[in-house]
């Protein structure tokens, strides 16, 4: 740990944590540049830089500014939101499985989105439906798991159960929908960044700007709560208040991210754990998890576009495949 002091202010940073964060930013920028520059039509990197400053060729302006940049930016922001959401909820449940994927929140967002799709909703209504679905499922899971406070394992088990029920609701809706709606709903529930424009990126950006300060405020008390409620209360933390704020922030981040990209699984699950292992920090760290989420999602999206080109996969299929592998790896490690 290195301490920076200035007068009465002091900041504590781990050199390895800072190095990891810097490394992730470099990788994130590099992957983003590749995603912006390559594809059916290659745009050289100097042209990308030029068009960022509004001095690019019209072709580059169109391809980068209208098509590729919104997709990359949405990917980065959604990834960061999922990473943060996972970090908060894993820290709160003191369990690496305590991500929105397992708590049923992602499933709730899917169901909300599918209802909107099947009812022929617009893009905005689908986004709203998934945000509502996410919040509603969180309220339901919390209420069902509540018995004199909420135990983490009960929250996860109830979440898995609610998630399973919601998946069956999804399938019911799909069988009742007409073929056109069912097809678009099918793409939507795997989670995809294809065709994302600035109208998708901006709401996520706004949500992150609004919620990041709250994340910064709750991150230190949350870290104390990882040692148990008693230890945190003894240190003077209002455990119930912090928990309520953290759950709301975690659910909102997950809901906003899902509204923009659909229920992309695995990012919220894996990003905090990978970030923790890389930075060797005790417990879950927010900033590193957000960066890791952003890097994971843009990388997975780039792979989904290029690996089976010209076939374009939805990013959700890529993350699901990676996520399954990661989960097996993690469970094997836990059993030792």
């Amino acid at each position, binding site marked *: 740990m290195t*301490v920076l002091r200035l007068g009465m*202010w002091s*900041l*504590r940073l781990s050199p390895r944590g800072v190095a990891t964060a810097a490394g992730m930013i470099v990788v994130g920028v590099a992957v983003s540049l590749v995603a912006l520059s390559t594809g059916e039509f290659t745009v050289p990197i100097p042209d990308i830089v030029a068009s960022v400053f509004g001095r690019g060729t019209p072709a580059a302006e169109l391809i980068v500014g209208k098509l590729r940049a919104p997709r990359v930016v949405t990917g980065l922001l959604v990834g960061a939101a999922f990473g943060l959401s996972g970090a908060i909820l894993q820290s709160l449940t003191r369990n690496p499985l305590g991500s929105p994927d397992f708590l049923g929140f992602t499933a709730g967002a899917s169901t909300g989105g599918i209802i909107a799709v099947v009812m022929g909703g617009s893009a905005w209504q689908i986004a709203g439906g998934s945000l509502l679905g996410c919040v509603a499922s969180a309220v339901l899971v919390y209420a069902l798991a509540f018995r004199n406070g909420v135990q983490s394992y009960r929250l996860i088990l109830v979440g898995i159960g609610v998630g399973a029920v919601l998946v069956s609701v999804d399938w019911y809706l799909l069988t009742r929908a007409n073929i056109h709606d069912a097809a678009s709903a099918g793409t939507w529930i795997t989670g995809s960044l294809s065709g994302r424009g600035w109208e998708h990126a901006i709401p996520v950006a706004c949500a992150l700007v609004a919620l990041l300060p709250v994340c910064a405020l709750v991150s230190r008390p949350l870290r104390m709560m990882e040692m*148990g409620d008693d*230890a945190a*209360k003894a240190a*003077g933390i209002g455990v119930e208040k912090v928990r309520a704020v953290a759950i709301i922030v975690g659910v909102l981040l997950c809901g906003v991210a899902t509204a923009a990209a659909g229920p992309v699984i695995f990012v919220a699950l894996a990003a905090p754990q990978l970030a923790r292992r890389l930075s060797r920090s*005790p417990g879950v760290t927010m900033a590193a998890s957000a960066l890791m989420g952003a890097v994971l999602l843009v990388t997975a999206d780039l792979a989904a576009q290029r690996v089976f080109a010209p076939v374009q996969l939805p990013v959700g299929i890529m993350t699901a495949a990676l996520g399954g592998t990661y989960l097996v790896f993690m469970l094997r490690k836990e059993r030792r």
Partner: protein
Amino acid sequence: MRLYGSGLTLSYDQRVVATELDVTIPDGSFTVIIGPNACGKSTTLRALARMLKPRAGAVHLDGSVITSLPSKEVARRLGLLPQTSIVPDGITVADLVGRGRYPHQRLMRQWSKQDEAAVAFAMEATGVTDLAERCVDELSGGQRQRVWLAMALAQETSILLLDEPTTFLDIAHQIEVLDLCADLHEQGRTLVAVLHDLNQACRYATHLIVMREGRIVAEGDPVEIVTAELVQEVFDLRCEIIQDPQSGTPMIIPESRRRTRTPA
């Protein structure tokens, strides 16, 4: 008195553990609360540490109702070592002890010189300085308990409450932890501990609180209050009391229902 509770009704949900309980912690004492299982001793300690909100009555700290004081302010005066805490994955000893400084820190003041000094002192006092960079998961039970104690100590409170600090330790580590507590008391702190072992309680306590079924049956200097009748009344155990050959404090020799081995 800096810390006392009056007219306390303590309950978990519907199960009432104590009613009309008055409990006072003498300043500068090493108070030990003892009693049979489910007598309410841990519950009482938790109420004193504001972990449990009394259904009636109030706990007072330095003349104010404890719940009316800002929680961080209380945490700078009164510390608690909970019965069980969770070790975060991969945390080092120095990091964990450092977390005891939380009530003294702010978002923009994360690590002052005073924090550093308090952590160094706490690790020195508990003998874990050499373990500073080790992972807490790798430590033995005794070492780990010393680390938790160091964390509570780093909080720099003049009152320290300990909920069964010796429970999961072998006898050697129990004595080690209790000796450490006695040292901390000698340095001027007020200590309150819940213990299971009567003999250890008699040895280390300057003030003993004996509880049964949510009531305080006796309290005072263990030398004056611990008698065979009291043990019979509180624990339903027939015993003989002799003098501890080491400390001169009362020592309980339980009577067994059967005498299987007669001396040769």
